[in-house]
């Protein structure tokens, strides 16, 4: 005899309260309708108890902590070491989307390298009036010392990471280029390792393109820059030392590549040749992957008060006896005011339309644009052109009148130093918060290696603004990261 079925108590879905707004959501087309790429993740999350999710999160955090995957927050005394907040859920990108990103970034970095070569040699682009010369020469990152210096393979930027965001229409655009010493790649690599331990089945089912070969490609990129015919060039990584916020990454990459991690005090320059001090005496260095800013590399050529570099390094570089990667003076191409010209730069050198667009950028040196921004401070994001890490920035809609006034004065005092961009709704991705899932704003930083050829390992670092509603994803400002899965098909 049939009995009436007991109503099965419904477990609350972890997506209850997941609110969609104008921003593009990476996971959901509309309420409870996940996009194709996210189907496996969606089903998996529905089948998991909140307790299980929490345990996974704890396991992941502990793994990061024990590995010492930490970064340093400047300006605090004790307890400066923190684990990099990592969100449990992967951000997923389809292979079609990735192909566009890959082509777009390859095009962009090729053009920027041609631009740098031109700026430090013939300056055709200035003479042709595509970019006003003034904007180059007033750039703080322009290095006069680099004029006419021959750079191996003409590759100025061999290691970079560009920040992409996704607009409400689903398109990826470039928010900024990081062409000096971008960091974060170790979080991409270690984050992947932890995710594989925590979601092995989901990972296998999804068919994710691997990224583990990054270190090998990095090493061969660096080796390909060695000019001399020395059969096995000695490659080293130059770090500012253990107190640098990215020290973990320096050590991690050096170990993964099997190269020495040197500090300025380990280097000696004699007769324009760079040596490192080893237990077997002095050993010649051919290629330096430097994670020290231009200004600190050589007290004789740049800041005299720096002890992070080596005296005489720049002369050895100019003499062609050592390769520095990235080259010096690359900051001129990621200046936020020059960024506005990148579409023109691409067209000028390659004769192509940019595959990835820029974000609309207003130059404060332009009288009309400046007047418009000053009158509408609450609608724009204002950025200092040479800053990174989320410092020196005003987010109009989230700012006080006092802060706006403050920036208004700064802009008027030094218009060259600022640009403005409309406040953009960065796309949102699901994040595990407490015991359920909520949307948070994200960006994407793929890592580009450019030597003999251009390689971008599929994925990159997805940075998350962990505070609800926040648009700032920088780790120094309360941002975290997510593993980024690029699917095979």
């Amino acid at each position, binding site marked *: 005899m049939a009995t009436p079925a007991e109503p099965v108590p419904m477990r609350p879905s972890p997506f209850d309260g997941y609110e969609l707004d104008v921003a593009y959501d990476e996971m959901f087309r509309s309420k409870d309708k996940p996009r194709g790429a996210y189907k496996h993740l969606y089903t998996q999350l529905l089948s998991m108890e909140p307790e299980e999710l929490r345990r996974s999160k704890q396991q992941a955090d502990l793994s990061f902590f024990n590995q010492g995957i930490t970064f340093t927050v400047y300006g605090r005394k004790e307890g400066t070491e923190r684990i990099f907040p990592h969100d449990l859920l992967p951000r997923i990108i389809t292979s079609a989307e990735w192909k566009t990103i890959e082509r777009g970034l390859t095009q962009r970095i090729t053009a920027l390298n041609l631009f740098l070569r031109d700026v430090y040699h013939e300056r055709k682009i200035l003479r042709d009036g595509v970019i006003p010369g003034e904007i180059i020469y007033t750039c703080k990152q322009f290095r006069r010392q680099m004029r006419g210096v021959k750079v191996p393979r003409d590759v100025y930027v061999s290691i970079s990471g560009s920040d992409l965001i996704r607009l409400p229409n689903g398109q990826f655009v470039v928010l900024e280029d990081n062409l000096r010493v971008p960091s974060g790649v170790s979080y991409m690599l270690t984050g992947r390792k932890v995710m594989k331990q925590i979601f092995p089945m989901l990972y296998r089912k999804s068919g994710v393109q691997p990224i583990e070969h990054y270190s090998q490609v990095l090493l061969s990129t660096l080796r390909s820059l060695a000019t001399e015919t020395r059969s096995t060039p000695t490659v080293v990584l130059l770090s500012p*030392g253990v107190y640098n916020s990215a020290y973990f990454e320096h*050590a991690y990459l050096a170990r993964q590549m099997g190269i020495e*991690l040197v500090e300025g*005090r380990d280097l000696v320059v004699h007769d324009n040749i760079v040596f490192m001090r080893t*237990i077997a005496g002095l050993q010649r260095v051919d290629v330096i992957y430097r994670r020290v800013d231009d200004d600190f590399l050589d007290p004789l050529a740049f800041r005299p008060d720096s002890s992070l570099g080596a005296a005489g390094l720049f002369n050895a570089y100019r003499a062609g006896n050592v390769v520095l990667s990235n080259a010096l003076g690359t900051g001129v191409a990621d200046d936020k005011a020059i960024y506005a010209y990148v579409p023109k730069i691409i067209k000028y050198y390659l004769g192509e339309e940019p595959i990835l667009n820029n974000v609309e950028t207003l130059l404060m040196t332009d009288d009309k644009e400046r007047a418009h921004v000053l009158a509408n401070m609450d609608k724009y994001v204002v950025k200092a052109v040479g800053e990174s890490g989320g410092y020196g920035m005003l987010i109009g809609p989230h700012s006080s009148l006092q802060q706006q006034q403050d920036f208004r004065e700064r802009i008027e005092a030094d218009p060259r130093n600022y640009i403005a961009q409309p406040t953009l709704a960065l796309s949102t991705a699901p994040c595990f918060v407490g015991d359920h899932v909520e949307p948070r704003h994200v960006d994407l930083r793929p890592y580009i290696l450019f030597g003999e050829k251009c390689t971008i390992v599929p994925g990159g670092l997805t940075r998350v603004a962990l505070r609800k509603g926040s648009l700032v994803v920088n780790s120094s400002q309360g941002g975290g990261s997510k593993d980024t899965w690029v699917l095979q098909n």
Partner: protein
Amino acid sequence: MLSRVADSLYWMSRYFERAAHCARVLQATHNLMLDPAKITADERWLRALAFIGFPRIHEELDPEMAIIRLAMDPANRSSIVACITGARDNASQVREEISSEMWEHLNRLYHDVTQPVWKLPEGEDAASFRSSDEAEAMRRAGEVREGTYKFHGITDLTMNHDEGWHFIQLGKATEHACSVSILLDAYFSTKKPATDLDWLCLLTSCGAFEAFCRAYTADLKPANIAELLLLHPEFPFSVRNSADQMYAASRALTANFSAPGTHTIERVMGRLRSSVSFVEVEEVTGGDPHQYLNDIIEQCTKLHAAVNDIYIEYPIEAVFEI
């Protein structure tokens, strides 16, 4: 290998060994203190504190305070916490040289024994030291003792036995030879006759009690104790074995990296090894043990200085012949 890296590996290893030794001494002394005895508590704790180079204090010493000083006081540079921190600081500067397993183990141990941070209670606060704190201090000491054994196992199994590994062995053996000699000096040069319980404490402090019983039965003759800790070829923690390890490590370095001055290393090693290999224990206990032990320490210091001058802080001018 970079000189700076070699130096950090060496010091990482020395600090680690010092932490282990301090943990063993703390555990053994603490255990001894739980039993009533004729000589005062102060005497015994001071012996332990003297061993770690703590300045002699005249005021009365609470056992609880002594525990904290030995184990948890970061201001005491030889405390367990300070040593583990020192080992980790050095390791963190050479993270690319050691295996990730070594780093992870050391990092985990560091967090385990330093969190939460222990504040040295002052004045009336001293009364706030509870028995659970005492148990916790002992637990941490145990973790360190065991953790160092594991660390050396991990090191041997996950790291290439190259020059970096030899610097680690050199640091470990040098530190061990020094610590055991200093501790022995505190027991053999003391005026008051030590009781069986004290000798027991010395053996446990050196992780040697079971080894002693196997070699000599449980008859605690001071001469036998000295023989085991100093001269025994089979006891792994004997000074003789440490000297052999120092010799093997320094030999590997001088053979592969010839540099001016390596003969100093060979001379010092020869002298140190003969003084623990070709001597009868009666010559030590019957003669002047203080001088004998001091000589061992001096040879260790000389070796340290020679290695440093030849491989770490050699003058650049000499290389370029400027």
